[in-house]
C-alpha cells in the first residue's frame, strides 16, 4: 500500500504523459501480484465495492479528535478524506499498513457494520500518505489523472513485445487482479483467452486531410461517407454478452439500454452513436444529455432516442473480417444489415464521386445538422488499429470563425506552467458589455505564445490566483466547429472545439464581433 500511495500522489500532481508512464511502469515492474493488479483496477475504474460514505469517515474521525479542531481543519484543507488522513493521530511507530489485496478482500467479505472498526485499525497502522490512499480508495474518489488507455500503454511498455492494442483485445475478458495478464506480460504465461467474452477491439482512426494530401488522392481508390457528429462506438454482441464501447474502450452500455436491447445478434460493428429528432440527426447537445450517465430513464430514452449509423463490420459470428479490404467489408455489412434488419440502426450512406472537385463541392455544402464533413476510406485497406497513414482520411468542413476579445488568461500546466496559455475570450453585447463565450488553449505557435504571454503580463488589470484579467486590447480570431445553446454560459452559447486561428494584433477590440453574430449561427 505504501508504493500505491506514493504512486497516487505523484500521478495526481504530474502533468506530463511520459512522466506518468514512467511512474506506472516502475510500479508495475516492482510491485508483486496481486497488489499491482488491484492497483491497475483502481486506476482504470474497474475496482468496485460498496463504498464508504463520507458520514462514516466523519464519525470515525470524531472518535479520535476534538470536533472543533476537526471542523477548523476541514475548513482549511477542503477535502474530507485528506483532512481525515492528516488529522488522524499517527501512532508512535507505524508498523504494518494493509496491502491493497488485503483491503479489497476484506471489504468484499466483511459485513458493512464491521467497516468502522476495520478502517480504524488500518488507519492506525498507516502513515498520512497511506491513510489518504485508503480513504480515497474506499470512498471511490481516487482521481489520479490516468486514463484506462494510459494504464494499458504503461503495461505495454512493461514487458514483452505486447502492444496496448494487444492488451485492449483481451482486456474486457479479464477481471481484477489480472494475474493472467501480468503472467502474459512477464512472458510467464500464454495470452489470456477472452473465450467469447464481449471484448473491445481497438478502432481504426482517420488522419485529418491536409491540402497537400488532397492532390495525391485518386478518386477511384476511395469511398466517401458523411462524417457524422455523434460519438464513435463499437457494438459487440454474441453468446458471451453484449456491450456498447466508446472509442476509448469505455463500456458505456449502462447509458444506452435502448441500444443494448437491440443487440440480438452475433457480430462486432463500428458506427456512430447519434440522437434522433424524428428522422433527423439531433444536434450534438442532445446526445450530450445521454452521455456519462449510470442509467437512462424511460423518459430520457424517449426524449433523446439513441441510434447507431453503421460504418463497418469487424466480426460476423466468429469470423474476423478485419483483414478484408474495406470494399469487401462494406459488402458484408450491407448484406448482414439486409438480413438482420436490426432496430435502431441504419447504414452510413456511401457517396459517389468521380473527381476531387466534385467532392470539394459536396463538402462545402455539408452544413446540415449532424454532419461534420467527409470521410474518405481506401477501398483496399484492411481494418487496422490506430491511425495508419494514408488509409482513412477525415475532411472536416471549414470551421466557423469569430473575432473575439481576450478577457482572461490563465497559466498552463507542465511545460506551459510559466506561460499564460489558456485564454477566455468574449464578444460584445448590444449594451456594450463584453461577455465570455469560450476558452481556447491551442492554435498558436510557441513564438506567438511567448508574445501573448508578455502582452498579458503587461496588460493585467486584476489577478485572481492563477488567472489574470487583461485590458480589452487583444483580438483573437477563434476557429470552431459549431455553436450550440448553453444555459451554463452567461452568453447563452457554447462553442465546440474552439481554438485560436490568428492573432489580430492589428484589430482594435472595439471592432471585434458582437454576440448576435454568433447567435445567428446556432442550429
Amino acid at each position, binding site marked *: 500500500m505504501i508504493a500505491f500511495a506514493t504512486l497516487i500522489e505523484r500521478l495526481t500532481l*504530474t502533468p506530463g504523459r511520459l512522466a506518468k508512464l*514512467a511512474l506506472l511502469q516502475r510500479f508495475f515492474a516492482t510491485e508483486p501480484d496481486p497488489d499491482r493488479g488491484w492497483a491497475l483496477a483502481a486506476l482504470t475504474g474497474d475496482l468496485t465495492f460498496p463504498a464508504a460514505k463520507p458520514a462514516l469517515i466523519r464519525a470515525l474521525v470524531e472518535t479520535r479528535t*476534538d470536533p472543533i*479542531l476537526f471542523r477548523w*481543519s476541514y475548513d*482549511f484543507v477542503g477535502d474530507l478524506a485528506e483532512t481525515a488522513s492528516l488529522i488522524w493521530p499517527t501512532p508512535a511507530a507505524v508498523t504494518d499498513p494493509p496491502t491493497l489485496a488485503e483491503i479489497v478482500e476484506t471489504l468484499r467479505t466483511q459485513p458493512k457494520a464491521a467497516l468502522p472498526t476495520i478502517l480504524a485499525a488500518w488507519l492506525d497502522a498507516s502513515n498520512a500518505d497511506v491513510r489518504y490512499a485508503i480513504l480515497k480508495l474506499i470512498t471511490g474518489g481516487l482521481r489520479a489523472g490516468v486514463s484506462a488507455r494510459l494504464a494499458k500503454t504503461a503495461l505495454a511498455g512493461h514487458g514483452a513485445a505486447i502492444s496496448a492494442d494487444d492488451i485492449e483485445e483481451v482486456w474486457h475478458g479479464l477481471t481484477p487482479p489480472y494475474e493472467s495478464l501480468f503472467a502474459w506480460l512477464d512472458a510467464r504465461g500464454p495470452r489470456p483467452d477472452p473465450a467469447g467474452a464481449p471484448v473491445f477491439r481497438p478502432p481504426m482512426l482517420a488522419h485529418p486531410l491536409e491540402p497537400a494530401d488532397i492532390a495525391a488522392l485518386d478518386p477511384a481508390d476511395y469511398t466517401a461517407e458523411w462524417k457524422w457528429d455523434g460519438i464513435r462506438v463499437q457494438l459487440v454482441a454474441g453468446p458471451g454478452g453484449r456491450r456498447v464501447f466508446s472509442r476509448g474502450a469505455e463500456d458505456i452500455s449502462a447509458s444506452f439500454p435502448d441500444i443494448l436491447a437491440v443487440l440480438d445478434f452475433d457480430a462486432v460493428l463500428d458506427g456512430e452513436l447519434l440522437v434522433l429528432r424524428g428522422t433527423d440527426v439531433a444536434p450534438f447537445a442532445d446526445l450530450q444529455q445521454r452521455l456519462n450517465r449510470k442509467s437512462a430513464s424511460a423518459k430520457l430514452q424517449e426524449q433523446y432516442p439513441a441510434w447507431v449509423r453503421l460504418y463497418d463490420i469487424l466480426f460476423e459470428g466468429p469470423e474476423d473480417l478485419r483483414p478484408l479490404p474495406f470494399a469487401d467489408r462494406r459488402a458484408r455489412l450491407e448484406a448482414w444489415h439486409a438480413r438482420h434488419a436490426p432496430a435502431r440502426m441504419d447504414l452510413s450512406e456511401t457517396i459517389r464521386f468521380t473527381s476531387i472537385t466534385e467532392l470539394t463541392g459536396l463538402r462545402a455544402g455539408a452544413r446540415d445538422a449532424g454532419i461534420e464533413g467527409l470521410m474518405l476510406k481506401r477501398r483496399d485497406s484492411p481494418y487496422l488499429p490506430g491511425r495508419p497513414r494514408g488509409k482513412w482520411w477525415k475532411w472536416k468542413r471549414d470551421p466557423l470563425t469569430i473575432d473575439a476579445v481576450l478577457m482572461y488568461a490563465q497559466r498552463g500546466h507542465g511545460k506551459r506552467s*510559466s506561460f499564460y496559455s489558456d485564454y477566455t475570450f468574449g464578444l460584445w453585447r448590444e449594451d456594450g458589455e463584453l461577455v465570455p463565450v469560450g476558452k481556447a488553449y491551442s492554435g498558436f505557435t510557441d513564438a506567438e505564445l511567448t508574445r501573448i504571454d508578455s502582452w498579458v503580463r503587461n496588460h493585467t488589470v486584476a489577478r485572481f490566483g492563477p488567472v489574470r484579467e487583461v485590458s480589452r486590447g487583444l483580438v483573437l480570431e477563434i476557429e470552431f466547429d459549431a455553436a450550440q445553446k448553453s444555459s451554463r454560459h452567461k452568453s447563452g452559447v457554447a462553442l465546440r472545439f474552439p481554438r485560436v486561428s490568428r492573432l489580430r494584433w492589428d484589430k482594435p477590440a472595439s471592432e471585434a464581433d458582437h454576440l448576435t453574430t454568433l447567435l445567428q449561427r446556432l442550429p
Partner: protein
Amino acid sequence: MPHPEAWLTVRPEGLYCVPGDFFIDPLRPVPRAVITHAHSDHARPGHGAVLATPETIALMRTRMGDALGGARADKLPIGETLSVGDTKIRLAPAGHVLGSAQVVIDHDGSRAVISGDYKRAPDPTCAPFTPVPCDVFVTEATFGLPVFTHPPAAAEIAKLLDSVKLFPDRTHVVGAYSLGKAQRVIALLRAAGWNAPIYLHGAHMPLCAAYEALGIPLGELRPATVADRAALAGQIVLAPPSAIADRWARRLTEPVTAMASGWMRVRQRAKAGGIELPLIISDHADWPELLQTIADVAAPEIWVTHGNEEALIHAATQRGYRARALRLVGYDDAEEAA
C-alpha cells in the same frame, strides 16, 4: 512580582518591553529593536539600533548591506546575559534558521520568552531549540492546526533523490526560501549522499556564501545560469519559490518542479501552485511540536503572535493554560518561508 502583562505590551510598531524600552521584531522602524532572526518579516530596515545573535547580524548584513539600513548593530551571543534598562536579556536557540533565537526577558522576578519562529525537528544548519521555563511563553502558530505533522525531512529528501533516479534526463528544480530553507535542503542533500554540484538561482548565492562563512559547509555550489541548460539535465537546482514556475524556469530542461515547504502537506496547495513533487520540509514547528513546546516550557500563560492562533489557543486552553492572541499583523505566516 508584576505579571508580564504589565510590562510587555502590543503597540502599533509591534511587541514592546516597557522597562527595557525596546521592541522585539518590530514591524515599523523604532529606536531600539531586538531581532529574533534575519527573515525579512522579522528583521526590517530603518531601526536606530538592533540587538541580535552575531549570526543574525551577519545574515542581516548580507540581506540589507553592511549599513543595516542605518542601524547600530549590537551582537549578543547565545547564552550571554545583557542588562537593558530594568531588564536582563539573553538569547536562546530557536532552531528556525542559522542565528535564530528566542528572547528571554527577566524583569522584577518574572520572565517572558518570545520565541520568534521556531521548530523542534533537527536541522544540520542551526542550533536546536532549547526550552526555557518561563511565566509567559510567546509563540508563533504558523502550522497551528492538527493536520500539520511534518514527516522527517530525510524521508522527503529521499523522495527527491528517488525522483532524480527515475527521471535522470530532467532537471529537478526545488523551490526553497533563500534564507534558511535553501541551506537546510542543501545540507540534507549532502547528508543523504548527494555530492554533485548543486545549482542555485542568483538570489540564493549570497546567503549560501554567508552560511559557509559562518561555518556551515554546503559542498560545491554553482550558479544556474542560462548557458548551462544541457549541464542542468539530471541535476538539482534550487530557486526561490516565486521563480520556479515563472519565466526564470524556462532555462531548465523539462523541469520536475518541487517545493520545500510545510504547506506542501496539503495537496491542493501543491496542485494550485503547479508543484509536481511536494517536499514537506518546514522550518516552523508542526502541531505536535507546538503542543510539546508549550508543555516543555511549563508557562502558565501562552501568547500567540501569528498563524492559526484560534486552534492553538483552543488546544492550550483545553490543556489548562491561559492562552490569548496578540494579533500582530505583518508576519508572513502564509508565506513561502514556511
